[in-house]
Structures are given as C-alpha cells and as structure tokens.
C-alpha cells in the first residue's frame, strides 16, 4: 500500500510541524496572559478561549477557505499546520501556566530575598523548575494532535485518512483500509504511551 505510506509521511510531518508551532504559541499565550497590562492579557485570554472552545474542523475551513477573501492564501499543508498549531497552542498555554504556577511561591520569594532580577529569576530559578514537569503533559497533547490530523483531509491535505478513503473508494471496501489505519494509529499510540510513561518517570506526573 504505497499510497498509505505516503499518507503516513504527511501525517507525521504535519504533527511535527504542528507540535513545534503549538509549543511556541503556547508559551507566547501563557506569557501574554500573565501580563499585568489588562489591555494585553484580556483580549489574549478571550481569543485563546474562543479558539479552544470551537472545533478545529471549522477553524481549518476558516483558514483555508475564508482567509483568501482577505488576501491570505496558504498552501494546504501550511494552513493545516497553522490550524493545528494555533488550536493546540491554546492547550499548551494551559500546561505552561500550570507548570509556572506549580513552582512554589517560596521560590519566587527566595529569589527576591537573594535580590535576583526578574530575568534572572525566570532563567535560573523558575523555568528550570517549571519545564521538566510539563514535558509529559506537552507530549500528551502532541499525541492528541497526531490523532486529529485526519481533519486535514477537509482542506485537501492527503494525509493518511484521506489516502485510506481514496483506496476505499477505488475498491468499495471500507473494512480493510480503515482497519489498517486504525491499527496504525493504535500502534503509534501504544508506542507513545510507552514514551509517555518513560517521560513521566523521568520528569514527573502528567497534569490532567
């Protein structure tokens, strides 16, 4: 099934690029939401909530079919990656927030008592403690993103699910290609469960 393997490649590429974008977008959202300037924090919070509260499928349609009306024309894969990255960025933002909040208040206070500046406190005290515990939770979302890539078929990205449908349509058989795709997702997911358990052991528990 060479067509299915082609689909696997696209699926994995979209997941990796989407994850990188989500990781970056999440950090930006988390930091902007902490801003003491309400004119920044509030709108960012609202937009993040809006993106998180609406289906990715509809957002993908928006990015792909409606943004061109406003002069923004994105290739399908890029549009898909942006959709995944923005959508999951609102989730990773919550992970970053929890990670930062979980650093005990005493650490901020000790940093102040040591007369460290804001930048020094972030770089040397807070982030080194906040980031390791959030690695498993971040990985969790990237796995979830992987499983949502079939949505990209709506914007003509030929990922795995779309390829499988193509195969199904040619032979009018759903059972085999769909089961193959299901098995593929299951295998990848079982691998990622193992990876996740390892990350949990190494870096601490996943916050649900």
């Amino acid at each position, binding site marked *: 099934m060479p067509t299915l393997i082609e689909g696997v490649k696209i699926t994995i590429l979209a997941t990796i690029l989407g994850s990188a974008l989500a990781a970056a977008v999440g950090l930006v959202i988390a930091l902007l939401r902490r801003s003491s300037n309400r004119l920044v924090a509030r709108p960012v919070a609202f937009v993040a909530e809006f993106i998180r509260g609406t289906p990715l499928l509809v957002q993908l349609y928006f990015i792909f079919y409606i943004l061109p009306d406003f002069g923004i024309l994105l290739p399908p894969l890029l549009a898909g990656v942006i959709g995944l990255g923005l959508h999951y960025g609102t989730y990773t933002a919550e992970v970053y927030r929890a990670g930062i909040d979980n650093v005990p208040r005493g650490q901020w206070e000790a940093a102040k008592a040591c007369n*460290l500046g804001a930048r020094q406190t972030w770089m040397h*005290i807070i982030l080194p403690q906040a980031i390791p515990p959030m690695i498993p939770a971040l990985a969790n979302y990237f796995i979830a993103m992987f499983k949502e890539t079939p949505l990209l078929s709506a914007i003509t990205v030929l990922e795995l699910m779309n390829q499988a449908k193509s195969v199904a349509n040619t032979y009018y058989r759903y059972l085999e290609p769909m089961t193959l795709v299901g098995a593929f997702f299951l295998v990848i997911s079982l691998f990622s469960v193992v990876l996740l358990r390892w990350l949990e052991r190494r870096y601490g528990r996943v916050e649900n």
Partner: protein
Amino acid sequence: MAEPIVKIDSISKSFGAFKVLDGLSMQVMPGEKLALIGPSGSGKTTILRILMTLERIDSGHIEVGGEQLYHMQRGGALVTADERHLAKMRQKIGMVFQLFNLFPHKCVLDNVTLAPMLTKGVPKAQAQKRAMELLDMVGMADKAKAMPAQLSGGQKQRVAIARALALSPKIMLFDEVTSALDPELVEEVLNVMRRLADETDMTMLLVTHEMGFAHDFADRVLFFDRGRIVEEGKPEEIFRNPKQERTQSFLKKIIAAGHRV
C-alpha cells in the same frame, strides 16, 4: 546614641478587608538582636515580609540604613519606589524562611554562590571560596555537592542561613526558622544562630515560638497581638514579669503546653 538602622513609622497593611497591621511604629538599632513573639496571626511574619519587600505597605514610611525603603526622591518629591530602588535596598537585607526555600534544582554550593555571582558579578572562584567559608561556619562544608533533597530539615536550614549570609546583608530576618524541624534537629540550627549573634554585629530580627531561645538570644523582645505591639522590653522583664494581661495569658498557655521559658 547612634541612629536606628530600621525606622518603621505608622505603617498599615490589609489583606482584603482584613487589617493585619494598623499604624505600627518601631525602631531597631544597629547590631540589635530583636525577638518578635505573639499569637498566631498577629502579624509577625507580615512585618518581616514587608521589610524584605515581599509585601507592599498601604500607608506609612519605612527607613532602612537612613534611606526610604518604599519611597524615593525624584525631582524633589517623594514618590513610590521603582524596582531599581527596591533592588538597591534589598542588598542591605537578607531573610531565612520557615520552609528553607532552597533552590531544589541546584546543589548546596550553587545555592550559596548563585546570588553573589548574578547580582554582584562576583567571579565564580571567589564566590565559591566565600561560600565554602560560610558552609564551614554552619557545619555544612562536607555537603557542598549534595542536592537539597538529600538533606535533613536542620541541614537545609543551615544552608539557607549560609545562602542569606553570602550577600553580606546588614540586617537578617529569621521567620520561625526552626518550627518546621523535628525537635531533635532544632538545636543544631539554634547553635548556628547563637554563633552568628556572638561573632558578628549584624542586626537580627527573629520571629519565633521558641521562648527559651528568644530569652537567651534577644536584646529586646516585642510582644505582638492583632498587628500592634502590646508590650516590649528586655527578655527578663517580658518573660518573668509581663505587665500586660494579654502577654501573661499568652505565656501561660505556651508554658502549659510544655515549652520551657
């Protein structure tokens, strides 16, 4: 007579609707060892946190070493201090916390050298030399490479004291530094503090429930209740012969609960 090193002038502080400090004034002389005692919730910790700039005050003035803590001169007027002013003032003050607050991701030595290297630009070799001296003084030199999680409570607290000393503050604040420790471990920390009191002329403010230690250690004792100083004096006076009824009843309960005075 010398000038006070800390002058607190009718400060107030509320948390929400709850007024913790209400027009409090007090002064501390250079080199003085001061013990703050009083019932839970009376505002003792709050005063130390305000001096460490961990909380802001609502009104009033504080002078430390002759300079305003929360205010500064700008164009002739006295305005609220900015972060730069606060950072400068914080150099004079160090604090040791009840729960140690060591940096768990750094070894003992790095805990002590971090602040001098980052805030004063002390070269690494020099910072480490000084840190080892301090760790030696608190009896922790042999654990320099250990991580905080490998230490007992008493050991952690001794490292925390060394860390605060590394910035050579003029004033040290201690907030119930032994109350999270197992009874058997209390003594090792108190011993370090006794040595510190004897060997340096640092100004020290101490919040404690260890009445015995407060008695031996302090030049002067302040008894707090509901954000006010109810009574103050030499330890002998306060502990043997308290004048206020509130002080008497507090000490009676503490003694009944098994604490030696």
